[in-house]
């Protein structure tokens, strides 16, 4: 799928009390980082959860690795979910497990042999700079450390798709830079496709291969970073430049 569409969404709709996704059309190519940005309440997190198969959309198509996710059987959906690693906005580490057990959990459920699990957990924790943290409890970690454990857990099965919801939220500038460098490294090392939601536009733009700007449940524009920057859309310009005056 490298270069081809690993993820494609066609006119996806979802409403709760009010419409949240209003006909989202989006594509993500293999081995690239797609930055998904937009003002709060634009529907980014809901969109990411729909791609991960965590909620049923009202209408539209979501194709993952060429297979339809919407209205698929539970088995198909779980098979597709197995090809996705996800970091949630609040990380969602399992509090009843140690750091090592958290990272190992997806491998344990897949029936990998213990020696292989141990080696891969050690490697993923080393990748995120948390070697030796295997026996620590998630409750005893800082926010940044929890996020890095979440990133390690998402990537431990080497999935072709990684979905990251605010991977650098609440982190200091140095840790934020390290986190984004880590995402680039994951793309290069695993060849995965990453969709990254981030409010930190300045750190996201240099690492993103493509950008999709979302507003009021729709994708305003998707393209390379220069294309989006030069599109001349007043909403996009105001958002990317962080100005207070404008249509937003």
């Amino acid at each position, binding site marked *: 799928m490298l270069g081809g569409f690993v993820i494609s969404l066609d006119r996806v709709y979802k409403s709760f009390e009010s419409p949240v996704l209003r006909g989202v059309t989006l594509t993500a190519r293999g081995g690239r980082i797609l930055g998904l940005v937009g003002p709060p309440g634009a529907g980014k997190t809901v969109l990411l959860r729909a791609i991960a198969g965590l909620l049923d959309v009202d209408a539209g198509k979501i194709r993952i690795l060429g297979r339809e996710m919407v209205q698929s059987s539970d088995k198909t959906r*779980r*098979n597709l979910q197995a090809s996705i690693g*996800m970091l949630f906005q609040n990380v*969602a580490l*399992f*509090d009843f497990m140690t750091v090592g057990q958290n990272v190992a959990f997806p491998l344990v*459920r897949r029936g990998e042999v213990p020696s292989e699990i141990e080696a891969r957990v050690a490697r993923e924790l080393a990748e995120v700079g948390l070697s030796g943290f295997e026996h620590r409890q998630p409750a005893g970690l800082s926010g940044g450390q929890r996020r890095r454990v979440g990133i390690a857990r998402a990537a431990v099965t080497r999935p072709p798709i990684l979905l990251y919801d605010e991977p650098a939220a609440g982190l200091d500038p140095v840790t934020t830079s390290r986190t984004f460098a880590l995402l680039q490294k994951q793309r290069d090392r695993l060849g995965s496709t990453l969709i990254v939601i981030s409010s930190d536009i300045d750190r996201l733009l240099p690492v993103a291969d493509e950008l999709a700007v979302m507003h009021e449940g729709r994708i305003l524009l998707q393209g390379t970073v220069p294309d989006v920057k030069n599109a001349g859309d007043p909403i996009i310009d105001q958002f990317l430049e962080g100005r207070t005056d404008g249509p937003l």
Partner: protein
Amino acid sequence: MVRFSAALLAQLGQALVALVGAVGTQAMVLAAAASATLRGQCDGEELRAALLRLGLGSIPVIVSTAVFVGGLMVVQSAPLLTRFGAESYLGWGAGFGILREVGPVLTGLMISGRVGSNNTAELGTLTVTEQVDGLRALAIDPAGYLIAPRVWAIILTTVIGTVVSMLVALVGAAAVGLFLLHVHPLTFYNGLTSGMLTWRDALHGLAKAFAFGVVIASSSTAFGLSASGGPPGVGRAVGAGVVSTAVLIFAMDALVSLTARAP
């Protein structure tokens, strides 16, 4: 007056919708647990852990409650038995009450308070912190990993706990009977096994225990998985779960008692 009636009607309607919703969610919990079990996806390791954590940990509180309950039944009935010289019926009276009513109901309430609220709080926390979604994102079916093991662990705990509670309460009743009414344990035993109590009475109590187990498991799980709004939402779910389960226990008690009345 008309406005008041309309408001009352609207509130009743909302309550009815909430009740139907709650019953529907509990039915879905039971269906998910049954389906995961039939598909062989009930996680054995989680079931073992839940039985140890929820079941074994409940034994001390069940035993201590049962001793007092058995003893108190004798204390309350002692004046009447003494007045009519019917001390030899102590075993039958205590056994009838303990096996058919007091054993299952009190055990059910104790397990609801300890195990059910614990289950709601754990599942509520997992839900509001997105850990349940985290499982689903890892392609792990919460029905097999979270729901079925807890439902079975709570049902088994309630049934086994009730058996333990019945036995301990009978021992407590016999002990208090000996010290308060000077009824020899053998007389107590003879009253218990005189033929006025049959295996149907024990089965009646066990049927109630099973029904209470189902109610506690489905209610506590449903309220936990429906929690929303962060830690305060978990607190609300626990409170609502405990109240709802207690009401359902008495409703099931009445249902089983009426459908299987003593001969």
